[in-house]
């Protein structure tokens, strides 16, 4: 390949424009709505004998949103076999990660402040689940390890 050809090819890449969703996200950050009392809801459903498909839903009461948070306060309970539930207060810019049986199945950037509700229903058998929250610098902020045995 000649230098001119390479130069031309290198210059042929168009600039990629930011999607308008970025405006909405930043706007929500700069002008946050009043803190909500009602918890967000995040539901993971783990299926198949080995791993895993995950259905991920998240509500703030009114609108479906694509971001969420975690924090220090943890309320957790394993009420019935195979079932886990927790509520965590989270803040903007955190990253919430979910690792199930050694596989990272969720890595989400939180873009709204509020309470995150996490709920798992697992398939029968033993499951090892880690919920990890990092702040925007990648520092570990919160980790919860949950062992679930489901009948």
């Amino acid at each position: 390949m000649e230098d001119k050809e390479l130069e031309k090819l290198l210059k042929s890449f168009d600039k990629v424009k930011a999607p308008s969703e970025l405006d909405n996200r930043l706007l929500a950050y700069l002008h946050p709505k009043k803190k909500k009392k009602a918890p967000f809801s995040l539901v993971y459903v783990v299926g198949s004998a080995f791993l895993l498909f995950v259905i991920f839903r998240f509500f703030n009461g009114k609108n479906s949103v694509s971001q969420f948070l975690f924090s220090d306060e943890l309320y957790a309970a394993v009420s019935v076999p195979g079932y886990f539930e927790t509520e965590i207060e989270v803040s903007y810019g955190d990253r919430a990660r979910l690792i199930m049986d050694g596989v990272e199945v969720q890595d989400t950037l939180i873009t709204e402040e509020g309470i995150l509700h996490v709920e798992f229903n697992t398939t029968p058998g033993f499951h090892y689940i880690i919920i990890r929250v990092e702040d925007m610098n990648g520092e570990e902020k919160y980790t919860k390890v949950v062992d679930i045995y489901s009948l």
Partner: protein
Amino acid sequence: MDFEKIYKKYKDDIYNYVFWRIYSEEDALDITQDIFIKIYKGLPKFKGESSLKTWIFAIARNTVINYVTRRRIKEEDIESYFQEKSTYKEVEMKIKLLLAMEKLAIEHREILKLYYFDGFSYKEIAKLLGIKPGTVKSRLNRAKLSLKEKLGGGDIYGR
């Protein structure tokens, strides 16, 4: 300094910077958002020791490095982006070029993208990377030579 003005001025440049390093529109959106939050939070501490553009892109660079450290770029990432476009020869060549770039040494890949994809000047690259402008020029030349080697012989269409 007005954050919203900064955002309007640099949002496309930052998104473009992020995208051409990770090849995922979805992740580029998350990372760009993350970068602007850092800029917003860091703005009161910015003392003008470097240019604003250098400072902003230093944040972007660190954020992308952090991401790439955790998630390696795969060939499929590049190919899947272009699959949505077309299968013309030019697109195939672009894929080939990007794959070759990903095989370069980090400093070569970085300088090529800063110059050709982000439109930085030698001086701007020098400030961002903390090297001399003369070094930028020589490193860029070495990077192009290395890229040609990776692309192999023949013309750009592999003929």
